[in-house]
């Protein structure tokens, strides 16, 4: 009986250890670096973080001018516009849910962040776009401080929710899901088409 009790206690201790090791599983502790108090030279790195008005995918779609499924083709130069640094990316349209574009058209979309004169500007809360990435994008034209359209030559988007990245997940029907950065909502292309149709009428 003593052996049995010892075994039970050992199991409980092991359980405690396992649960304790899970205590920080929901934290994102990106690797810390050493911090030095004095330094004169080096490359400059700027990080942006933004607090957004609470809104839904439906609201984004409602005010968008173009909603498409597209494939990434090229990265253009970075440029400072208004108060932020942007990098333009070229996409080829593969499916149009709403807007005045056709399959095969190329569109230019600005992403926050980039490199200018060896100064790197990083926007943290955003998916990494690379060659051949397939995404669903809910797009607007860039506007100025008075909400007047600056240009119709390129598009912009709401960073946490405006670009939904292709995932490995599939629906019961075998359709692939596209997921927004935050909140982590996901849609298949068919579901997005239905949503856009219901919002845009």
């Amino acid at each position, binding site marked *: 009986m003593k052996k049995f009790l010892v075994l039970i206690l050992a199991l409980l201790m092991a359980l405690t250890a396992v*649960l304790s090791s899970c205590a920080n599983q929901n934290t994102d502790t990106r690797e810390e670096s050493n911090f030095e108090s004095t330094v004169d030279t080096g490359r400059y790195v700027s990080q942006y973080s933004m607090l957004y008005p609470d809104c839904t995918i439906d609201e984004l779609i409602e005010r968008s001018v173009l909603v498409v499924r597209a494939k990434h083709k090229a990265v253009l130069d970075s440029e400072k516009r208004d108060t932020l640094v942007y990098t333009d990316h070229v996409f080829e349209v593969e499916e149009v849910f709403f807007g005045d574009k056709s399959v095969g058209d190329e569109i230019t979309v600005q992403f926050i962040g980039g490199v200018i004169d060896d100064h790197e500007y990083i926007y943290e809360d955003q998916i990494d776009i690379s060659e051949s990435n397939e995404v669903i994008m809910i797009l607007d034209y860039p506007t100025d401080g008075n909400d007047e359209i600056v240009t119709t030559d390129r598009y912009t988007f709401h960073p946490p929710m405006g670009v939904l990245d292709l995932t490995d997940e599939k629906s019961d029907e075998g359709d692939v899901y596209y997921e927004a950065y935050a909140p982590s909502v996901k849609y298949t292309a068919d579901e997005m088409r239905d949503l856009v149709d219901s919002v845009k009428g």
Partner: protein
Amino acid sequence: MKRSMIRSLVAVVCAVLSCVSLTVSTYAYAIWMNGGNKGTYIHFYAWSGFSKDTLTQFDKAFDEWNYKAYSAKPKSLWIDRSGNLTDQTVAFVNNDKNEITKGNRGASRYLMATKATSILYESDKYKLVEVDIDVNGSIPWANSVLKNYYFVQNAFTHEVGHVYGLDDVDADKYSESTMYYTASKNEDKKCTIEADDIAGIKAIYGGN
């Protein structure tokens, strides 16, 4: 005998599991700024066009972090405004000066934003040289909780969290957190920092 033994065992298991559940905690925080701001005093210059009431909101937000996270951070780290003003309205200017600016950036963009600039002088070593916070003037702001307005202190407390080195959290279950990535009109829940936020500060600076 056997029954009493089983009852005792069940009691022991329940007691241990209760203790474990109390000690296990899942904190909602993420680290934004590598290495934080160890050992520094960070002094902000606010745009001269802010009202006295708005400046008071900023000071309350700084105090919330400075005092409530006091034991979690280095004692020498203090972030405040110290009353000095700037004429700068352009956001995020690289001028080695920590500034709080305001300008119309468009109603569909951010409420407030923070930019931290560091010198990367080795592959993983930084020196923080400047932090700027911008207030989007296209957004309806109020210095108290008012219907259809965003509360300045609520959003600014979130931004001060970034200055301390914390990142946004975006999972729906953390929507009550100061560092949640969105804010609503009439909202004031970000004005007070909680255990999650302090745990994040401890993770960056190693305090108690």
